[in-house]
Structure formats: structure tokens, C-alpha cells
């Protein structure tokens, strides 16, 4: 297991019928970094996220997640087709059957990858705290009997879950809204709550899809410092999609640029800023024309 890279994406291909959303996308994400995935509208950024969080089954390529105690192949846990070689190897066959029946994107989260969505997906008719409690489903005591009898050990884990929820509410400055319905919050608050909810699953890497969309400049500033807190205090690797170039250049250690389903550049902010291909893709200009980001 590679200690250096938490995520390794290799030759990822995703086709929707005739639409080639991703052709051969390859990049690695370093553990403990803040990385950004940028590109013009429709470049395929959200599609990359959906593939690596297991919501789309990639048409081809590999995704390795080096988190938890062992590396996870995202393609495998979603359930693959049976192969001829399964006939001679019962172990491989049963593993495939297991993932076909019980596999799915939830296993990617359990392996240590959490995400937020471009179009916010909160549990709108549940309270803010409850949103965070649901996220801790895999951590709390799920025994039906203990819960119904309200045993001491059950109460203890529930209390711990509540404390963890309030911890994250403090981080995203939503403590005073704890008992409001998630759907009643303002747009910026909902975005922050979604990040807190994803963090409640104790991930090693968090993927944020346009976290600054719809935020005003001061909110964006607060978000940037929050992202730094995630990396510095919680050792969480952050991968984000963002259109706000100021913020991207400001906080990212590493940037991958996507256009028409292909990686056209990757590197540090300085390299990207001056890369003529990137400038051309963003401004629709011919290569070599003199434009600046």
C-alpha cells in the first residue's frame, strides 16, 4: 500500500451511451494535501467524483483508495461482472458474489472517503443535529435490543455521538442552529452543514463538490480557513472541485485541470496559472494568445 498517495486514479474512462464524459483520466492525490480539480463547465469533474465515490460504475480504469488498514479497489466493491477465471477460484467467485449482493457506494465511505454534493443533499426535514447523528450510523450502537431497552452502554454511545456532532457544529459555526430543520438553513449554512456531516463519518479523505458555489466573499474566506483546519488538525486529505480561482490558487497544494474528459494539466498553483493549455481551455482562446488568469 502506497503510503504517499491516498488516492490513485488510473486510466479512468466513463461513457454514458455515446457520450464520452471521461477519457483516460489519471492522477494521484497525496496524503495530507489539499488538491483541487478544476475545469470549465461540463469538463467531467463531477463525473470523476461520482466514479471515485462509487455512484457511477466506471466503464474502465482503476481507482485505488489507500485508507483504513488496507487498500480498497473502488471498482471491485461496487460488484464486478463474473469472469471465466472465477470457475477455478472459488474464493474470488464468492468475493464477487458478496460484492454483487451487498456491495455499493456505502463501502467506499466505510473505507474512509466522504463527499459532499454539488446540489446540496441534506436530510431537509430532520434537525441539524440529527443530520450529523445519521452520519455516525456506523460508529454508534445499532443493537435493536439495547436501543429499545435504553441500556447504559447504549446511552453512552448516543451521548458520545451527540458530543461529536456538537464538536463539528462548533467547527462549522452552526451550534446555535442545532435544533433547526436542515432545510430551513441558509444556503451557505447548508453547505457548511454538509461538510460537517461528511466529516462525522471520520473520513481520511473528503471530496467537496463546489463548496464555495453561492457563497459571498467573506463566507468563501471562512470556508478556506475551515478547509485548512480539516487538513491541519484532523489530518484529512481534501480534494475539491471549485470554480472560484482565487480560492483554488490560495489553498491548493496541487491542481488537476480537466477539459472534455481529459487531464490537460496537473501541478502546483504556480505552474497551472501560467500553463497556456489551461488558459486556452478556460477562456476558449487559441493556444499562444496572450491571456492571464
Amino acid at each position, binding site marked *: 500500500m502506497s503510503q504517499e498517495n491516498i488516492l490513485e486514479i488510473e486510466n479512468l474512462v466513463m461513457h454514458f451511451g455515446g457520450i464520452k464524459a471521461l477519457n483516460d483520466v489519471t492522477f494521484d492525490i497525496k496524503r495530507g494535501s489539499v488538491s483541487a480539480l478544476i475545469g470549465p463547465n461540463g469538463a467531467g469533474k463531477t463525473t470523476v467524483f461520482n466514479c471515485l465515490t462509487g455512484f457511477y460504475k466506471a466503464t474502465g480504469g482503476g481507482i485505488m483508495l489507500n485508507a483504513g488498514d488496507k487498500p480498497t479497489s473502488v471498482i471491485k466493491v461496487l460488484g464486478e461482472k463474473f469472469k471465466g477465471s472465477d470457475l477455478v477460484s472459488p474464493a474470488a467467485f464468492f468475493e464477487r458474489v458478496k460484492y454483487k449482493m451487498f456491495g455499493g457506494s456505502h463501502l467506499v*465511505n466505510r473505507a474512509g472517503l466522504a463527499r459532499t454534493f454539488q446540489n446540496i443533499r441534506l*436530510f431537509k426535514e430532520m434537525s441539524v443535529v440529527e443530520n450529523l447523528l*445519521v452520519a455516525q450510523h456506523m460508529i454508534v450502537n445499532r443493537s435493536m435490543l439495547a436501543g*429499545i431497552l435504553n441500556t447504559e452502554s447504549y446511552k453512552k454511545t448516543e451521548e458520545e455521538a451527540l*458530543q461529536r456532532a456538537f464538536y463539528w457544529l462548533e467547527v462549522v459555526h452552526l451550534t446555535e442552529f442545532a435544533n433547526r430543520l436542515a432545510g430551513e438553513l441558509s444556503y451557505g449554512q447548508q453547505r457548511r452543514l454538509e461538510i460537517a456531516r461528511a466529516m462525522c463519518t471520520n473520513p481520511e479523505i473528503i471530496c467537496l463538490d463546489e463548496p464555495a458555489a453561492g457563497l459571498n466573499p467573506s463566507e468563501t474566506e471562512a470556508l478556506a480557513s475551515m478547509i485548512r483546519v480539516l487538513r491541519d488538525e484532523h489530518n484529512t486529505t481534501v480534494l475539491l472541485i471549485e470554480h472560484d480561482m482565487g480560492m483554488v490558487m490560495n489553498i491548493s497544494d496541487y491542481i488537476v485541470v480537466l477539459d472534455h474528459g481529459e487531464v490537460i494539466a496537473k501541478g502546483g498553483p504556480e505552474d497551472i496559472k501560467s500553463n497556456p493549455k489551461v488558459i486556452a481551455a478556460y477562456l476558449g482562446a487559441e493556444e499562444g494568445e496572450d491571456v492571464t488568469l
Partner: protein
Amino acid sequence: MSQETGINIGSSIKDTIIAGLLALIVFGPVVGVLLDGYEFIARIDDVVWIVAIVMAGRFAISVFVQTESGKKFVYRQLTKEDGVSVTAPDYKSKMRYIIPIVIVIGLIAPFIASKYVLTVVILGLIYVLLGLGLNIVVGLAGLLDLGFVGFYAIGAYGLALGYEYLGLGFWSMLPLAAIMAGVAGAVLGFPVLRMHGDYLAIVTLGFGEIIRLVLTNWTEFTHGPNGVSAPLPTLFGLEFKRRSSDGTPFHEFFGLSYDSAFKYIFIYLVLFLVVLAVLYVKHRLTRMPIGRAWEALREDEIACRSLGLNHVLVKLSAFTLGASTGGIAGVFFATYQGFVNPSSFTFFESALILAIVVLGGMGSTLGVVIAAFVLTVAPEMLREFADYRVLMFGILMVVMMIWKPRGLVRVTRKGFATRKGVMK
């Protein structure tokens, strides 16, 4: 005509005439024409009465909403907050006082009430159980299940056939039926719960019908439309019959003279305790991880998956628990009727249970209890109008959807006191 004087009789009369014409179109063919062999009998007077009532009502409403208090009423109705709300952390529900009173009344009632009232209340309680079961599936987990009656039938036939073929009595079948219905729910659920909304509704509708058709047509095993008799419960082996083939019956043991009400009192008491237990479990479930997961799944399945919840298993647990509650209700229904046949398990029954859940307020426990009694006890009380039962049912649904689209009882969520946040 000035705006301030308010009441505009002309427009009220116009509304009244339109309502009258609509009533004529709706009720004319339904009420006014009676088929008698190949002949029609016109019943003009009934139609006239109904249309007159509708017109009078429409006129009254039309005038009322133009008065000052009427305007206020309409304003209040339109601006009312009717959604979900979160209670304050230190909020204590008034139910604390109401529940003990209801329990005491419920335990005393059977010894005072007449046998007829008792049978009606037993029926009401059976529907409370059914409503609670379906409420887990539809109200909490958001899975539209149109074949819930299938699990009810499994419970009822489980008791009747278990007694006939295996000699199992009420007490052994009560848990067994819950398990059987739960297993049936799981077996049906595992393949179909990957589907969404409409597809799931169609598959479950089919399941309910298949169960009924199997019960009707597998005559060697189920006696088909003739039905099967079901045993009564026993009290530590004492039977509630006039004469018992083995052992002394209940009334002889206690030196009482035989009264057929005894068995209803006993069924009622057992049922009452089971309903209380189910209510308690349901109350706990909504505050437990699994209950929260159900509701989260109803709100957003994709977000649930992104948080590591296995959506199929979460749905399956809701489906299974709902089904086993339905199975328990079936056992009580069979023992209460003493006889089951397939005609008790038609689609109309599924629709009625669904109506209980919707009227009560999706996910609201209290709402389900009230709605179950309204929808089962009211038709019994209004026996004279039995022909119009479905019609009244429809009117009630329409009225509810206009005034209280989110159900009778507003859903509240528990608030949590602010704590010091701690990591790990």
C-alpha cells in the same frame, strides 16, 4: 357596489349554482339511478336532497368567507405553519399526563363496555397495529407499499392453518406469525427494494394480490373461499368456550356462568397490551440509529449511501419490521373473528391502511392511532350509511388533502440540549 360592505350575494349565488350543478353531475348517476335487473329505478328525491344540501353548504361557506371572521379564518388557514417542527430541548410533551390516563381507561373499559362496543374497539386496535406497521414502511422509510394486506393475511392464515395442521395455538402462533410475516417481507424485499417509488408500489401491489389468489385457489391446503376456522386464545390453558373438549373451560374454573363476552374481554386485554408494547417500541425506534436511518433514507437515499449506510439493508429492516407488525395484527384478527377467508384481504384493505397512515400524518404515531379509530370505528357507528362508506371515505380524503395535507397530527422532532463538543 363598494368593497367595504363586504358580502357580495351575487357571487355567492353564482358559486352556489355551480356547486349545485357539479353535485348533480357527480351524484345524479351515482345516487339517482338504481339498477334493478335490466331496469332502472330513478330516485330523483335522493338526488334533490343531496344537491340541496351541497348548495346550502356552498352558499353558507361563500357568505362566511366574506364576513370579517371568515376572512380571518381563511387567512389563518393559508398562512399556517403545517410542516415538521423541532421541539425545544427541555420540552415535555403533554402526553406524559395523557398516556397514564388512557392506559387506566383502556384497562377498565372492557369491564364496563357492552360486548358490541368491545368488538368495535378490538377492530379499531387491530387497525392501529396495522397502521403502525405500515407507518414504519411508508411514513418513516418512505417506501410505498400497496400490498401490506399480504402480511396481514399471512398472520391470520398462519393462526388458522397452524392450528388445523400443527395444532399450534394462539400463544405459539403470535411470535411465529410475526416471524413468518417478517421473513416473507424480507424475501419479497431483498430483490425489490432496489427499485424506487412507483415500481416498488406495483410490485407490492402484485404481492398482496398473489397472496390473496393463492389463499383462494389452493383449496386443498387453505379450503379456498370457504375459509378456515381459527382458535381462541387461552388463559394458561383455560379455554373460553362453553364446553371444552380437554380440561375445564374458563368460566367453570372460576365458577362463573358462561358469557360470550369473556373471550372478547380477554382478546381485548391482550391486544391492548400488545398495542402498548408496539407503541413503545415504535417510539424508541424513531429515536434510535435505525429509525433515524429510515427517515434519512426517505429524505435522500443518495446522501445516505455517501455516509456509509447500506440502503438495501436499511430498507429491508423497515420492511421486515413493518411486515411482522402486520402479521401480529393478522393473528388477532383471526382469533377475534374465529374464522378467516380470503375476502378479508382485498386491495381495499391495503388502501384503508394506507389511508390511516396518510391521514394520521406520515411518521406520526399519535396521528396513526387517531386515524385508525376514525376510519374503522366511524363506519361501525354510522351503520345506516354503510352504502356510502367508500363515498364518505373519498370525501374525507379530499377534505384532508385540502386542509391538512400533511396529516392530522403535526410531526415534531426531538430537540437536543447543546453540549460541549468533544472529538473521539
